[in-house]
């Protein structure tokens, strides 16, 4: 049953060290503020599931919060590599990172299976692909009617799902629209759910391709306007492509990354504070340039 609360409280009470956490959002509505709050709270040993790790998991990994990553596409979209992810995989910095690498179709189906209370999903996938040879937990199942062999993949059932949405009402019913990715499935597959939102509204007014999550499948709703930056919220903001590009040099070297995270994330109180901190630095740099 959803409670309206601060993000700090939600993270403190609902995410525990060692939890399997799915922070979803397919390019759109990525719950970056919640990611920061996990770093501030110093959560450790997380099994982090996400189709596209993106900057949010690059940071979590670089800050040493993650023991194992389950993912299907690990890049900085339109820019290049996720350097903190690569440094962890290639050099074990800041700590060893176990990876379980799957495909988009697999993880999408695995969330569906999780939401459906099934232990596994069946798909036409992985034929000829090397991933099953390298730790992807893919098995085979035979259709009892046709004899066809199909891929079987384990369901994803996170302890906690974390998403960002446009609206919630005061009861905690949540509304999102635009590219909705696997967020509905992630929430319904999870034991607990945290949703940050752009706005609390009196009544939800679902429009085109809207997804409504009833308040009783959600544990915490937290008002965090712009909480998905540098990703975007349709109707509220645009994707900050400049920040995605800026992340490349910030994340490339360990020292600069750590300094940046320390200054802007760990030393700030919340996401609004963080964004002021980053903006102030940009002004400073512009003045210095």
């Amino acid at each position, binding site marked *: 049953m959803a409670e309206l609360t601060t993000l700090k409280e939600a993270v403190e009470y609902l995410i525990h060290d060692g939890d399997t956490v799915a922070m979803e959002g397919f390019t759109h509505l990525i719950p970056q503020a919640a990611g920061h709050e996990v770093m501030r709270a110093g959560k450790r040993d997380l099994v982090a599931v996400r189709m596209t790790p993106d900057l949010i998991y690059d940071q979590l990994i670089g800050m040493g919060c993650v023991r194992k990553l389950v993912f*299907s596409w690990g890049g900085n979209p339109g820019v290049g590599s996720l350097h903190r992810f690569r440094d962890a995989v290639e050099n074990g910095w800041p700590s060893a990172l176990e990876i379980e690498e799957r495909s*988009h179709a697999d993880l999408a189906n695995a969330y569906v299976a999780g939401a459906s209370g099934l232990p596994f999903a069946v798909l036409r996938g992985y034929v000829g*692909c090397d991933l099953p040879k390298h730790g992807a937990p893919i098995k085979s199942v035979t259709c009892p009617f046709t004899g066809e062999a199909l891929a079987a993949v384990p369901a994803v059932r996170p302890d906690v799902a974390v998403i960002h949405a446009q609206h919630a009402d005061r009861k905690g019913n949540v509304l999102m629209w635009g590219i909705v990715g696997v967020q509905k499935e992630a929430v319904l597959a999870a034991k607990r759910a945290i949703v940050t939102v752009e706005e609390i509204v009196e009544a939800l007014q679902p429009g085109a391709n809207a997804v409504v999550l009833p308040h009783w499948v959600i544990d915490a709703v937290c008002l965090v306007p712009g909480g998905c930056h540098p990703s975007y919220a349709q109707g509220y903001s645009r994707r900050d492509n400049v920040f995605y590009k800026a992340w490349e040099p910030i994340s490339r070297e360990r020292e600069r990354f750590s300094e940046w995270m320390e200054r802007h994330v760990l030393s700030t109180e919340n996401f609004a504070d963080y964004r002021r901190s980053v903006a102030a630095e940009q002004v400073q740099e512009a003045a210095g340039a």
Partner: protein
Amino acid sequence: MMTVAAARLLENGAICFVGIGLPSAAANLARATHAPEVVLIYESGPIGTKPEVLPLSIGDGELAETADTVVSTPEIFRYYLQGGRIDVGFLGAAQLDRFGNINTTVIGDYAAPRVRLPGAGGAPEIAACAGEVLIILRQSPRALVERLDFITSAGHLEGGDWRARAGLPGKGPTAVITDLGILRPEPGTQELVLTSVHPGATRSEAEAATGWPLRIAADCGETPAPRPHELAALRDLHERTARAHSAA
């Protein structure tokens, strides 16, 4: 030329599952030129999207705002791709072998990679389930290799009738469009052979830029030069895109 040549291969009205980057540019060029009715689908969920500018990410707002509808990611992969509703899968690749198999996972050893690439994304199942697959990449001996370090997405795997024997629904790669020419699988063996050379490039350049002994098709010709309206459309697309993304 690569983008123009790739765009031309997309038929008007085709239902096309589009990868980000070069495939997206080519597919949108096709839509701006000879194929206004092409239906573009991105794995993030937009169906029948008509972006004015090229998306930087697979889930830019522009894609949702201009789509006929947006569905969830599971629905895209389950009902549309796996459901057999896609005519053409349009993919990029980091490495490619002679049977059109794709590596987008690692260069070097998986456990201790020389270069860690982004990984599979939607490609393995697009390669498996789309009616046919077009691949677009820049040619070099490090990209077109004798042996992949990792097979992410199966093309014709070991060649011949492997796909049919493996029970894959789609025909697999039917063309690879590079900056030098077009490679197509030779009927029977399914080995990629050079079937067209772009204006300004030569067969020997193409051979030199290929990591296996590239064979030339008997009827290998020259790719028709880009026409003015194709070049204009491509320039417009890139200009609009550059304006939009720097303004962000």
